[in-house]
């Protein structure tokens, strides 16, 4: 029988939540790496027992952990993220030039076909790759060295590369997103990059449709339709039908189009999920009601999903990496909150229930569907 393993990164450790395919009874393992921030952990699509975890701390910096047995045991691997060559500057919050400095790994994206190859999205924004299971890391400097790099500026959370999408249909194609620079695409395995932000408009920058400078919070793609991308921007939910060449807004009837995560149903490429958040300064759901919104039309028309979610006095946030879907039938949808709850829906969003209620603030949620 199938089962699922939910990988939860929190401010103070990692938790592994497991259930059979009914997804009704859950076992909780953790905290792993207690006391450390686990920005992200993710399993390899090629070997579900291979997990990678980004462990960091304000005191002791960055550590990377690897498991080869599905999270039962872990080993520390390489944590040396050294920018390639001479680093220049990006913009600081006040617009002055600021040198590139490594702070942490926000996102680890294992290769689609090799358990020992994994990409790391870094703050200050850069993309690294390891091809030896995380022991050593090499920057793919073409991204950071893009001519627009000196204009990139940090979002409130820092100048972070938080999204890495790999395209199974086009092995050389990758997408990344950086706050607050925007989305970028490579067609040559990460060697060279170009911004793909045409159609984005951001009122927070002087040139609202500039080539870079947009605070993209998350992008998502269904593997069967890699030309179609969905984006949750600082404000606005966007869609591209041409691999990011251009974008159009699909916020439609959302109560607010500010938010962080966005994800796609495992079996329905036009069914997408967001969690509307009131505003850029009010990081909580509108009206104190936690609602996931689902569109079955690839955007524009949205419906609120609230059964089982708190509908009064709820003022949590859902961060950009804290939503995921499983690939069971029917598709399970999961998200974690800054209040420490992880909610699961085993029926594509119709009903929700908390798996756990009282974890530290949740930074990331990933799901593995195991056979």
């Amino acid at each position, binding site marked *: 029988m199938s089962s699922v393993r939910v990988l939860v990164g929190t401010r103070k450790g990692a938790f592994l939540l497991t259930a059979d395919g009914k997804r009704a009874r859950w076992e909780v393992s953790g905290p792993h790496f207690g006391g450390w921030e686990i920005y992200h952990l993710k399993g390899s699509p090629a070997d579900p027992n291979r997990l990678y975890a980004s462990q960091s*701390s304000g*005191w*002791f*910096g960055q*550590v990377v952990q690897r498991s080869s047995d599905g999270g039962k045991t872990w080993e*520390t691997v390489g*944590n*040396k993220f*050294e920018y390639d060559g001479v680093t220049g500057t990006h913009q600081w919050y006040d617009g002055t030039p600021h040198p590139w400095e*490594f702070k942490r790994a926000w996102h680890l994206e294992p290769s689609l076909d090799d358990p020992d190859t994994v990409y790391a999205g870094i703050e200050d924004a850069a993309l690294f790759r390891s091809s030896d299971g995380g022991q050593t890391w090499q920057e793919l400097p073409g991204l950071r060295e893009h001519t627009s790099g000196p204009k990139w500026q940090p979002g409130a959370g820092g100048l972070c590369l938080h999204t890495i999408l790999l395209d199974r249909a086009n092995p050389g194609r990758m997408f990344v997103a950086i706050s607050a620079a925007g989305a970028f695409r490579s067609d040559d395995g990460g060697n060279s990059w170009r911004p793909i932000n045409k159609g984005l408009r951001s009122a927070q920058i002087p040139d609202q449709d500039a080539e870079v400078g947009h605070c993209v919070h998350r992008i998502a793609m269904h593997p069967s339709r890699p030309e179609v991308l969905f984006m949750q921007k600082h404000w606005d939910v966007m869609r591209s039908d041409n691999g990011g060449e251009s974008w159009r807004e699909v916020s439609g009837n959302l109560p607010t189009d500010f938010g962080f995560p966005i994800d796609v149903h495992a079996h329905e490429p036009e069914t997408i999920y967001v969690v509307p958040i009131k505003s850029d300064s009010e990081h909580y759901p509108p009206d104190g009601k936690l609602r996931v919104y689902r569109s079955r039309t690839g955007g524009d028309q949205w419906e609120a999903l609230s059964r089982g979610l708190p509908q009064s006095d709820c003022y949590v946030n859902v961060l950009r990496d804290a939503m995921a879907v499983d690939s069971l039938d029917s598709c399970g949808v999961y998200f974690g909150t800054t209040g420490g709850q992880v909610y699961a829906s085993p029926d594509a969003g119709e009903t929700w229930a908390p798996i756990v209620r009282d974890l530290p603030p949740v930074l990331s949620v990933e799901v593995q569907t195991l056979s």
Partner: protein
Amino acid sequence: MIRVILPQHLRILAQVDGEVAVRVAEPATQRKVLDALEASYPVLRGTIRDQATQRRRSFVRFFACEQDLSHETPDTPLPEAVVKGDEPFLVVGAMAGG
């Protein structure tokens, strides 16, 4: 031997209990102690000093003999009591960190 006391999170990372001891050439300095510590426990690289700059991480402090040695230069000789092993060299997570 120089006795080093690591904070809990680094003891877990290095998989050690209690104090660790390192041997360094005289004159013993912070840099030599940390070099020896990282050589014995490579997993600690980057957790006490920045890997690129070798500077002490902001929220890490070095104490010994009831003194804060954090702002000494890395090549300042350590107190005699530390060199003799009478007093430990403490690596401490600062109160403001985390």
